[in-house]
């Protein structure tokens, strides 16, 4: 840009020198200093005294050939023949800021075009690389979704029939078998509810209400009692009255998953301590525990504490999603081979302060 302006000014200077030469020859018949609408000019003699000037700014710098100052651009040229006694010719124009604006516009325009091109290429390549991964996840989700639909009716039938059986007339041996069927059916039922929540109900609108947690814990403990008894795991309940404003289906999923995990990963003859206070609850088991470096991974989908127990590894992922939705705080403290305690703190305002 600077060289372009310098070229323009040099052309003006050349033009002015020609006019000065003509004037020098015609002088004094013609004594009108040559002026132009495109530029202003001045001539100075060898002793740097002014001969004539049409410059706006009279402050002259003889040390620079080309410079900008106070919104003007000035070029100094030496004359070989001192027409009218002029040794120095100054050509001055107003600094044109349009070039600056046009450069900014050019940069923005080109930048936007390149950004769009890169974004299109980026999207194209991301799509190519992610497609196999997305297909795998979709396949797994579709499989779970399809399976889930087929599970409901048989499980309901099994559970309903087990409940309706008259155990009084059965032998102890058969009673044990029925209890095992009940445990198995409830395990599948629990899994069914998790999968249903994950694949079908996850995006449903929450129906928040005041939920009595003490009653809910008692209810869910009773539900899982038969499952716990199969591993001879006992419950130790320390429940105070507490209510929370939440979707009952969702808080049930949280409690079910925590209790279910506490049973699943407990040792035989172990215990589960459930503590409920006004603004938090803790579910603590006496099981295998989790290695400290893996504590943060347990909420990821398809992650399991260990591979010795069955399951899809989706339970705690569901818990975390619900906890996050209601801005609750969940903390895990675990000691390997001693047990795990999961504490859920309620957000102020979601609990009944009465």
């Amino acid at each position, binding site marked *: 840009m600077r060289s372009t302006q310098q070229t323009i000014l040099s052309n003006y200077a050349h033009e002015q020198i020609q006019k000065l030469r003509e004037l*020098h020859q015609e*002088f*004094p018949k013609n*004594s*009108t*200093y040559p002026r132009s609408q495109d530029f202003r000019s001045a001539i100075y*003699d*060898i*002793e740097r*005294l*002014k*001969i*004539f000037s049409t410059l706006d700014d009279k402050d002259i710098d003889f040390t620079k050939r080309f410079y900008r100052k106070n919104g003007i651009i000035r070029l100094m040229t030496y004359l070989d*023949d*001192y*027409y*009218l*006694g*002029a*040794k120095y010719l100054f050509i001055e124009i107003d600094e044109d800021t349009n070039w600056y604006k046009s450069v900014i516009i050019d940069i923005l325009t080109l930048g936007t075009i390149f950004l769009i091109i890169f974004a299109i290429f980026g999207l194209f390549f991301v799509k190519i690389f992610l497609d196999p991964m997305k297909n795998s996840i979709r396949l797994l989700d579709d499989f779970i979704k399809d399976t889930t639909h087929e599970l409901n009716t048989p499980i309901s039938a099994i559970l309903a029939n087990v409940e309706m059986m008259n155990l009084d007339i059965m032998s102890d041996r058969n009673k044990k078998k029925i209890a095992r069927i009940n445990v198995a059916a409830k395990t599948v039922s629990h899994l069914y509810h998790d999968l249903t929540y994950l694949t079908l109900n996850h995006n449903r609108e929450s129906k928040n209400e005041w939920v009595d947690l003490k009653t809910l814990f008692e209810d869910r403990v009773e539900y899982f009692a038969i499952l716990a008894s199969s591993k001879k795991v006992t419950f130790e309940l320390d429940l105070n009255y507490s209510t929370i404003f939440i979707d009952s289906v969702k808080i049930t999923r949280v409690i079910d998953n925590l209790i279910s995990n506490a049973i699943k990963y407990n040792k035989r003859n172990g215990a589960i301590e459930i503590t409920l206070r006004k603004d938090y609850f803790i579910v603590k088991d006496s099981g295998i525990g989790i290695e400290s470096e893996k504590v943060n991974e347990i909420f990821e989908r398809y992650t399991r504490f260990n591979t010795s127990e069955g399951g899809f590894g989706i339970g705690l992922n569901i818990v975390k999603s619900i906890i996050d939705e209601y801005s609750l705080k969940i903390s895990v403290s675990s000691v390997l081979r001693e047990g795990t305690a999961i504490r859920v703190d309620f957000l102020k305002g979601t609990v009944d302060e009465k």
Partner: protein
Amino acid sequence: MKNKILLLIFLTLSLGAKDNNSVYNTNCIPCHEHLPYSLQKIYMLYLKTFSGEQTFKASLKAFLKEPLEETSVMPDEWIENFSVKERTTLSDKELDEAINSYWELYDVRNKLH
């Protein structure tokens, strides 16, 4: 013949130097007005060659005191026809006065508009 003419010019210039108020008028004009190259033209020639006032005056003074072909600004044709002038007989003071008058008379600064 040419040398005689030049001698006549400068003798006239020297004799006319008595009048302090018009050293230039009495010593320069009378001879130059008969020459084909006007004093105005010579002034412009000097100006084109020496540019500034001090340089102009110093160069002219040096030439008038010691005229040489090498230091003359006149065209070759002029030198061929008229040769260089004779050395001036004016005193430094008179010479300065005449040159100052010459400078002021044709100074372009006062005439450009």
